[in-house]
C-alpha cells in the first residue's frame, strides 16, 4: 500500500513538473541571464535580460508568423542596458525566442531557445 502510494505521489510530482512552465535561464561564464517570448495582440516579443552583474551584452530575436510565413526577426541587442526586448508588431503569431549573452570576461553564449 505504502509503495503504491509512493509511486502515485512520485508520478503526480513528475507530472506537475512537466506541465508547469518554468522561467528559462542560462549561464554564460559569470553571466546569468534569462529570457522569454510572448505573443499578444499583433505584437510578438522576445526578451533577454541579465540576472546578475556579470553580463556585458544581451541579444534576443523572435520567431513570428506574418502573412502565413514564419520568419526570424533581426535581433535586438544592447551593450547599453542589461536587457533588451524585441518587439515585432504586425505579427500574426509567435512561437520561439532566441537568447544570447556576452559575459564580462567576453564569454559569448550560444543562442538559447525559449518556447
Amino acid at each position, binding site marked *: 500500500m505504502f509503495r503504491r502510494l509512493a509511486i502515485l505521489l512520485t508520478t503526480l510530482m513528475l507530472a506537475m513538473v512537466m506541465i508547469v512552465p*518554468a*522561467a*528559462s*535561464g*542560462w*549561464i*554564460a*561564464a559569470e553571466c546569468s541571464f534569462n529570457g522569454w517570448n*510572448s505573443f*499578444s*495582440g*499583433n*505584437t510578438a*516579443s522576445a526578451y533577454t*535580460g*541579465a540576472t546578475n*552583474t556579470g*553580463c*556585458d*551584452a544581451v541579444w534576443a*530575436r523572435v*520567431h513570428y508568423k*506574418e502573412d502565413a*510565413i514564419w*520568419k*526570424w*526577426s*533581426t*535581433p*535586438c*541587442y*544592447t*551593450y*547599453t*542596458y*542589461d*536587457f*533588451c*526586448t*524585441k*518587439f*515585432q*508588431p*504586425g505579427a500574426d503569431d509567435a512561437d*520561439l525566442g*532566441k537568447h544570447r549573452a*556576452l*559575459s*564580462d*570576461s*567576453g*564569454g*559569448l*553564449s*550560444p*543562442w*538559447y*531557445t*525559449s*518556447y
Partner: protein
Amino acid sequence: MKSLIVGVVLAVAVASCGGSATNSHSASLSSLLDRVGDQMPASQLSALRDLELTYDEYERAFHLAVQCMSDQGLEVRGPNSENNGRYLTYSFSSTDSEADSQCFEEHLSYVHRVWVESQIPTGAEADRVREEYADCVHSVGLDPPTDGDLAILERFVGESLRDPTWGNNAALDACIRQYSNAIFSNDPWHLSSGKPWSATRKPRSASESRQPGKDVCPISANFLTDLAQLHTLTVRHELTTQGGRFRCFDDSQSCSPP
C-alpha cells in the same frame, strides 16, 4: 554589467554622435587599421575608415547583407526603412535561426552596431522621451513606474505584455510602436501608423538631422579601436565556449546544448 571596453565604446559613441567634434582621427587611424587587420571585413572597413558613418553607407551595408543572404538561398525581406529612415532591417524564413549570421558578420556587424548605438537618446532628451513614453503607457490604463530611466520603463512595458490582462491591447501596441521600437529596437517594422519620437525632435546639430541619405554619425577613432578590441575578445571567447563552458539551469527543456 559594463566592462571597461564596452564602457569606453559607449562613452565614445555617445560623445561622437552628440554633435561633438571627432578627434584624434588621423593619429589613431593607422593604429586602428593595424589592430583590425583582417578582422574587420573589407566592406565595413570601407564604410568606417573615414570615421563617419553616413546613412548611405549604413543603407549600402544592409543591401550587401541582404543580397548575400539571398545569394545563399535565404528567403529574405529587406532592407526596410522605418521610423523616417531611422533604422533599416530585414527578416528571413529558415529553420535555422542563425542562417543569417555569416552575412551579418560580413557586412553589418560593425556598421549596424555603430548606427544603433548612435540612435539612443541621452541626457535631457532621454528624460523627455521617457516622459512621453510613460504618458502613452499611462493613457492606456497602465501604471508605469514614476521614477527610473527609459530602461526601467521599457522593462515594465515588456512585462505588461506578458500579462494576459494587458497582453491583447492595441493601444499598448501603439505605444510600443511609437516609442519602444523607435528607441531600443533595431527592427522597427510596420511603423507606418506610428509616429516615432524622432519626428518631433530637433536635431542638436546639422549632422544629426534624420534625413535619409544625409545622416552622418561622426565616429571617433577610439571608438573604432575599442570595437576592434571587443571583436577580438568576442572571437577569442567564442572559441573557448566550444569546450562546453555554458550550461543551463532551472529549465533544461528550454535550453539548447552549447
